[in-house]
């Protein structure tokens, strides 16, 4: 097996056994990137020099210390909305194309402390607003399974990177499905933890009450390993929760016979592509075969989730994105006139169409005359949705649902913004309720495109959620094939 094909856990074992060095591993991924990323377009920025330096340090640390972190020397990719000290963090926007943060996000600090070299920054929908990565203002990212299709979004770069073995794993962010949907489209495992489990400090905000950093990996074990590194209280994030973090990797097991799975009637009565439905239902049958009980549950308010989500998320982001005014950093328009003219032109030039649409929507719903009818109303719906989940979790331990209604679509396949928004039907309610959820591959459709299944747990129920995902993954087995990319000659 080639180095770039190995999972993070396999790499960690090889590193521990001394079969390979961190420098060799890191170099292998850059070689792979050089060989195929011009087809995929996953990365916006490569961090060759620092990554290899970090790899050298990891190797030295392994020689020097007896007790080293489990993922020491295993490299990783980061979505480009996570701040990296001294390395540009663009959010795939013209606005921040040249922005170099003077500090590291808390998750980045944790990765560095764990001795994990950072390969680079991955493409995304501009400011994480989108579901296909087509809204990136800087680059086109293609789905490694079919280069004519989107990788999903907004964490499309991270999903494509892991899927194409351009990184063993990656971090993404999920505001309404931005980890789980691209993971499903690219045939990998994507997890959004409970709101507050992972610090958001250094994550460039889209909608702060919904944003959460999560993992994008080749398998569930890697998810658990990576979650062990990034989870935990951070005094720099007032919404991070101060509670003890269990060892998610050590708690993995395959016995789900004591678990009850809930199928939300509202999700399964939605417009799901028949092949997706078949794949998800067959996975549920496998759970039953493992001895788990499957019950029907109800999430009656979930039909309002999309509307509530777009009101809340847009309202928040219209405020969060106000700071990009050209004064201190970011794009500044070269115009004659007063400072307010400069603001207008900088923002008009720096933001793409989807960002503008959402800012307009968000500004509208927060106007003093509209606040009560839109924002406050949406917050009430949000509370009801959270309550729906609470009640559902009285009847089951884990909710099972599709991650997306269909597989990855062709470029320009969804042109209507409202239709694009509707793609998040199964993922958005989870963000509104602040719950953990994981999407994992459950098969390929007749076109050979991966299908994703989603498991949702109660707040801070990551241990059980990962156990369920792990058991199901073992039962389903690996996908019958992996993406085939043409590799340039010198490999």
């Amino acid at each position, binding site marked *: 097996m080639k180095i770039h094909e190995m999972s993070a856990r396999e790499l960690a074992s090889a590193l521990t056994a001394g079969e390979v060095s961190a420098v060799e591993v890191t170099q292998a991924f850059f070689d792979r990137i050089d060989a195929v990323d011009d087809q995929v377009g996953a990365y916006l920025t490569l961090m060759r020099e620092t990554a290899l330096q970090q790899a050298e340090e990891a190797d030295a640390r392994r020689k020097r210390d007896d007790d080293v972190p489990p993922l020491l020397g295993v490299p990783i990719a980061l979505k480009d909305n996570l701040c990296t000290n001294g390395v540009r963090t663009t959010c795939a926007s013209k606005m921040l194309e040249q922005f170099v943060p003077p500090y590291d996000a808390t998750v980045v600090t944790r990765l560095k402390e764990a001795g994990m070299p950072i390969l680079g920054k991955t493409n995304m929908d501009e400011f994480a607003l989108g579901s296909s990565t087509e809204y990136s203002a800087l680059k086109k990212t293609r789905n490694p399974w079919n280069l004519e299709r989107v990788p999903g979004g907004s964490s499309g770069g991270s999903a494509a990177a892991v899927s194409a073995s351009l990184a063993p794993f990656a971090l993404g962010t999920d505001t309404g499905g931005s980890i789980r949907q691209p993971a499903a489209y690219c045939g990998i495992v994507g997890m959004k933890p409970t709101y507050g489990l992972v610090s958001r400090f250094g994550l460039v905000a889209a909608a*702060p009450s919904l944003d959460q950093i999560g993992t994008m990996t080749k398998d569930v074990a890697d998810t658990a390993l990576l979650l062990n590194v990034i989870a935990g209280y951070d005094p720099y994030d007032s919404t991070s929760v101060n509670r003890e973090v269990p060892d998610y990797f050590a708690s993995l097991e395959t016995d789900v016979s004591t678990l009850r799975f809930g199928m939300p009637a509202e999700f399964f009565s939605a417009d799901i592509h028949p092949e997706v439905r078949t794949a998800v239902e067959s996975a549920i049958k496998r759970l039953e075969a493992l001895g788990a009980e499957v019950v029907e549950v109800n999430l009656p308010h979930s039909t309002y989730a999309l509307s509530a989500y777009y009101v809340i998320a847009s309202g928040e982001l219209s405020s969060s994105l106000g700071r990009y005014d050209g004064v201190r950093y970011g794009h500044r328009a070269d115009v004659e006139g007063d400072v307010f003219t400069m603001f207008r032109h900088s923002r008009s030039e720096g933001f793409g169409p989807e960002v503008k649409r959402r800012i307009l929507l968000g500004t509208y719903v927060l106007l003093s005359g509209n*606040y009560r009818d839109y924002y406050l109303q949406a917050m009430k719906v949000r509370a009801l949705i959270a309550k729906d989940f609470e009640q559902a979790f009285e009847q089951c331990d884990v909710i099972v649902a599709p991650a997306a209604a269909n597989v990855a679509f062709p470029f320009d396949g969804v042109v209507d913004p409202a239709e694009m928004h509707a793609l998040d039907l199964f993922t958005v309610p989870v963000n509104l309720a602040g719950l953990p959820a994981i999407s994992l591959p459950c098969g390929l459709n007749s076109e050979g495109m991966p299908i994703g299944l989603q498991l949702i747990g109660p707040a801070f129920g990551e241990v059980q959620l990962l156990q369920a995902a792990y058991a199901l993954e073992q039962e389903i087995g690996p996908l019958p094939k992996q993406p085939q990319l043409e590799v340039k000659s010198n490999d």
Partner: protein
Amino acid sequence: MTKTATAWETVIGLEIHAELLTDAKIWCGCSTQFGNEQNTNVCPICLGLPGTLPVLNQKAVEYTIRAGLALGCEIAAFSKFDRKNYFYPDLPKAHQVSQDDQPFCVNGQVEFEIDGKTYRVGINRVHLEEEAGKSVHSGDNILGSEFTLIDYNRAGVPLIEIVTEPDIRSPEEARVFLENLRTILRYAGVSDCKMEEGSLRCDANISLRPRGSTEFGAKVEIKNMNSFRSVQRALEYEMLRQQEVLESGGVVQRETRHWDDAKGRTVAMRTKEEADDYRYFPDPDLPPVIVEREWVEAIRAELPELPQARRRRFVEEYGLPAYDASILTTEKSLADFYEATVAEFAEPKTVSNWIMGEVLRLLNETGRTPDDIPIEPNALAELLTLVKKGTIGANVGKEVLEEMFKSGKRAADIVKERGLEQISDTEQLKEIVAEVIAENPGPVQQYLGGKETVIKFLVGQVMKKTRGQANPTLANELLEAALKELS
């Protein structure tokens, strides 16, 4: 003197901003020190860089509650922060974190007196928010400037906004209220309230209505009043301006006006109809704050005696005139100094006279404030004891105090070093008296002839011979006795 519009009643409400005295800013650990080099008290958080998050400085909440308690407010059990969204170059996040509908403190009041009459002004609310940076324009304002530089040192300094009820009825009342508010906030130790440094700022809403009416007239907001005096002046100007508009049959425009202190007038800034919509909504980065009752009570227990109560107590406990009491309590440090001195020298009115006369004069002359009186209360008490015992006279005492301010030496040491002790030794003075009688036969004869006022001249001669150090009372007695023997 304030001119009063006879047909019109003036209605004034104030909005006061006071910077809190916390060491650190409200969301980060940066210093709040005033006057540092531009853009040095900053970090990614207070610059609002992408990805940064606010973490509430609990001290800022404590100070807000303390201010609220000092102003007689109710303290909310549940409070939250909201974003006030607007674009301005000195506002790093394009939103100011403030409090919209659930402030920490509501329903307070301030009582104060003018010429013996008591006034009461309701406090609608006290809320906590963050300061913006400071724009330094090359011209008069942002639109008329070639360029503007911004200092973000102030961005994120915690700030309270105090909103009064429209209870104020004259410009003078507004000024006196504001002075009292300043004293209260300084007593509570929450703000240094320096209008000249901008740590206390005041905007005013003023409207006129026909006397007897209960409805409010169209209100005008006045900004840019940079001293207590300018608050009164601006309101006086605006009161008369509105009166003229109304009396000539016009309508007062609801608008914001800018006070031009140099020209002594208000100038229209913008009409309220075009007011910004701030799109307030709860800040998703900051969880709501549950204010525990025990905490509030602990803060209340730590509050010092407030100026109004202290003023009353000074009158009752020390028998001071109301005027003395109000002067001595304007600053907590001065009142503390007074009480500490009285504890060592139990003549309250004497101490008051010396502090109000000499101490305040010396502070004024040396450019000091009551916060840095250069002598200890017991040093003043020692000086007063020397005067009382007759070791030195009162006039010499004033000189000694001046020297104490300069050198920090104790009164007794200065008296000894400079040989300022009064001669109260009877034998020694008797000799001098005998000399004076012998040297001044003419005046002695006049005295003996019945012109008794001549004794003042003779006492003067004794003082002259002793270079002013003779105890004048004793000298007088001894002279009288000696002259009696001659008659």
